[in-house]
């Protein structure tokens, strides 16, 4: 008996053959190799920086920048610090990313639904749009808008007149600016109140439906609260707004609100490029909802629009959201191409700072931290949204 037990007991294995020991050794060797490589890089960098007489550290952020920036959404002059300049860059990045995401989503959804249309013409044009824009580098499209279209527009003196007192010239788009008086604050508060009221109403209605099965409309009262209420307040407070119209002087258009050509080029190019990807995502999402769902919905007696709203779109969204998130992130990262046309976003401002100070390590670190931060923030938000939309299984 004892002999039998001995023969089935674990055989002795050499340490190198034991998976656990071997895993440990591999990991230790890898960590040592990475640390050694990192130490080698740091060592070289420190020596090279010392040779080039460049002080390391983020102290340069508080010194005077001394360069001007074309588009300044927050207070900035040439006397401001490098840190402030980078902050302007971050703000500009967020502005163009936000605007681009909005337009790309709208265009992308329209084209994506258009690709599934029964109408030959709608389907064909949508397909052409997707296949053309998806296969051309975004940088090229940016340059095309900037050098090919906006730069050859007429001078401000002969600017093209658009409706509502706007002008289009090689200095960009000049639109009337709305100047609000202080009493316009009430209107703003009314909008906020309207939105809050609509949210409460939607919740009350939903609870009512859960309890009694009776549906009450949220759409019209909601519209009344969000649009009607502010309009009434606006009229009551005596229309506290005036418009400043751009005027053509001898050399330039003065007054109003200027949208610079750099912004326009970047915004249009990124929106249309990303829209082509969003269109494909939307199409795939809708196709992913099986035909049986549509049939079941009509068997339940839902109208076509009810079926879309209550059955198909919620399921399609579940498929659409994850890839949509990565498209939003791509657009945000692609705003860095603004550098090519001089739109002062983070990378463009950063490269000016880098050229002036030579602090390449620090500037690159700022870039990386900001973009990683933006990426993580966007994906956190979309994950939260995704979790809300996810299938709740009972």
């Amino acid at each position, binding site marked *: 008996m004892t002999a039998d037990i001995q023969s089935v007991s674990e055989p002795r294995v050499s340490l190198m053959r034991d998976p656990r020991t071997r895993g440990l050794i591999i990991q230790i060797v890898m960590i040592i190799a990475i640390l050694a490589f990192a130490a080698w890089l740091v060592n070289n960098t420190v020596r090279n920086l010392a040779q080039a007489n460049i002080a390391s550290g983020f102290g340069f952020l508080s010194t005077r920048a001394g360069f001007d920036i074309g588009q300044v959404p927050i207070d900035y002059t040439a006397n401001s610090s490098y840190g402030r300049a980078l902050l302007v860059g971050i703000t500009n990045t967020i502005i163009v990313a936000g605007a681009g995401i909005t337009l790309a989503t709208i265009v992308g959804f329209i084209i994506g639904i258009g690709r599934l249309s029964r109408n030959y013409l709608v389907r064909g044009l949508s397909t052409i749009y997707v296949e053309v824009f998806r296969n051309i580098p975004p940088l090229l499209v940016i340059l095309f808008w900037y050098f090919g279209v906006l*730069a050859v527009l007429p001078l401000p003196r002969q600017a093209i007149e658009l409706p509502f007192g706007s002008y289009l010239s090689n200095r960009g788009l000049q639109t009337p600016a709305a100047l609000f008086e202080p009493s316009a604050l009430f209107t703003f508060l009314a909008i906020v109140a309207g939105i809050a009221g609509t949210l409460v109403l939607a919740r009350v209605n939903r609870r009512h439906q859960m309890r009694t099965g009776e549906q009450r409309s949220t759409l019209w009262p909601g519209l009344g609260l969000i649009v009607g209420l502010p309009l009434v307040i606006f009229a009551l407070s005596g229309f506290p707004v005036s418009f400043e119209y751009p005027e053509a002087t001898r050399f330039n258009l003065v007054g109003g609100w200027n949208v610079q050509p750099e912004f326009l080029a970047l915004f249009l190019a990124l929106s249309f490029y990303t829209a082509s990807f969003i269109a494909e995502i939307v199409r795939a999402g809708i196709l992913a909802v099986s035909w049986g769902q549509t049939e079941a919905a009509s068997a339940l007696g839902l109208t076509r629009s009810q079926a879309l709203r209550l059955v198909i779109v919620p399921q399609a969204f579940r498929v659409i959201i994850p890839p949509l998130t990565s498209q939003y992130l791509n657009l945000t990262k692609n705003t860095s191409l603004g550098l090519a046309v001089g739109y002062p976003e983070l990378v463009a401002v950063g490269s000016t700072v880098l050229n002036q100070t030579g602090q390449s390590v620090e500037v*690159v670190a700022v870039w990386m931290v900001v973009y990683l931060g933006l990426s993580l923030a966007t994906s956190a938000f979309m994950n939260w949204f995704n979790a809300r939309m996810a299938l709740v299984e009972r």
Partner: protein
Amino acid sequence: MKEHMTAYVASEQKPALPPPPSEVGLWGILRRNLFATPFDSMLTVVLGLFSLWAAWNIFQWAFLSAVFSGENREACLAQEGQAVGACWAFVHAKFGQFVYGLYPVAERWRVDVVIALLVALALPLAIPAAPFKRLNALALLGAFPFVALVLLTGGHFTVSGGWVAFLFASASLVAAALAAGQVAVSQRLVRWATWLALAAFAVLVLSNLVSSGQVRIMVFRFSGLSLVALLVALASVAASALSTRAGGGRGNLMAVLAAPLAVLALIVLLAGDFGLQPVPTNLWGGLLVTLVVALIGIAASLPLGILLALGRRSHLPAVRLFSIIFIEFWRGVPLITVLFMSAFMIPLFLPDGVTFNQLLRALIGVALFSAAYMAEVVRGGLQAIPKGQYEGAMALGLGYWQMMRLVIMPQALKLVIPGIVNTFIGLFKDTSLVYIIGLADLLGTVRRGFSDPNWITPTTAATGLVFAAFVYWLFCFGMSRYSIYTERRLHTGHER
């Protein structure tokens, strides 16, 4: 009564009524597909008018009012009261630059040969029915890069003796391993060969630590010890080769000698003087640079991506953590900052006296960046392989690398071919970014071209960019069609 009881009973099938006239024929098709509802009809009319207007304008711009020939900007300037469309004369004049950059005109045939070779090797690989896939892949991945390198740069590299010794030592180790795997060999000689190969490495390490006199053999500069290492490595190769013949053995001599012969060919190729005029990389440009960056990027990122994907699914926490951080870092930052990093920081990272040229620095950035994306694609494939495949492989007694190489990877990579092609399309479009850090790729040469004072007109920029867009579009669209075709072809395997 009886008559009344027997109501009408059909004794045979009634013929079907003809469909309503509004549903058949041309009018029916049009009605169903263009004018189904009032809203549809409105869309059709509006979009139809828009397409006609757009098509006419594009046609007019590209052909009717376009300028096809001319020497300089004069040709493309608008005459009184007449608009000028595309300035094709500009594209015609700069075409050579768009393709080759500043590559010397007399040497451009070398680029043509490289591109022709690439097409000749890659095309049969892409066509499923073409034979000799293994040999073809070996030629494309093993031989073509070096031939292309020598043709494009002019070759005649200075290979140090240390490198020669290192390459031969590695080859001798491979030869010994291959000999050991055969049955009909003298194991004693193989053991000798292995020890000699290891000794060669030891001497090589020593030669880097201890300085020993200089010897010059042909074009190679050896230190004394590295020469010893080379001789030891050659001895090891000889032992491996002899082992296949020892004692009337009938081992496979060619398999053993393959690695040393390949190394010999490589060294001759790199160090040899073929009378090609050297062309430094700062003269390269246009489509050539675009293709070089894209192809090297994909070739480097695929193996790196596979390793990272395996690392991310590894059971070893340190390996997994490292892979996750690496992948998420590169995926979280824009390529342009990566390129800036490689342009400005790689020189800082390197010790004194070591410099990389600009193209190589950009290539490193592009390769690391696309490796992270490739890793995620490959990971998708790995996750799609059912667990039973892993368990089956382990039950057969395969080790980790055997399991990956023989069972998992062939299935996983086959699944993600479309994903790999899509990554390549993305990479191909992204290569246009290298122009921002000063390389003259296709977009860069076009950009420089339309800033040329000889050619500045209002339509030059648009014409040049439309031309570049068309070239990029052609490549990307072609590849995406191929990806769809592969997807369909591979999909059939899953249907019963």
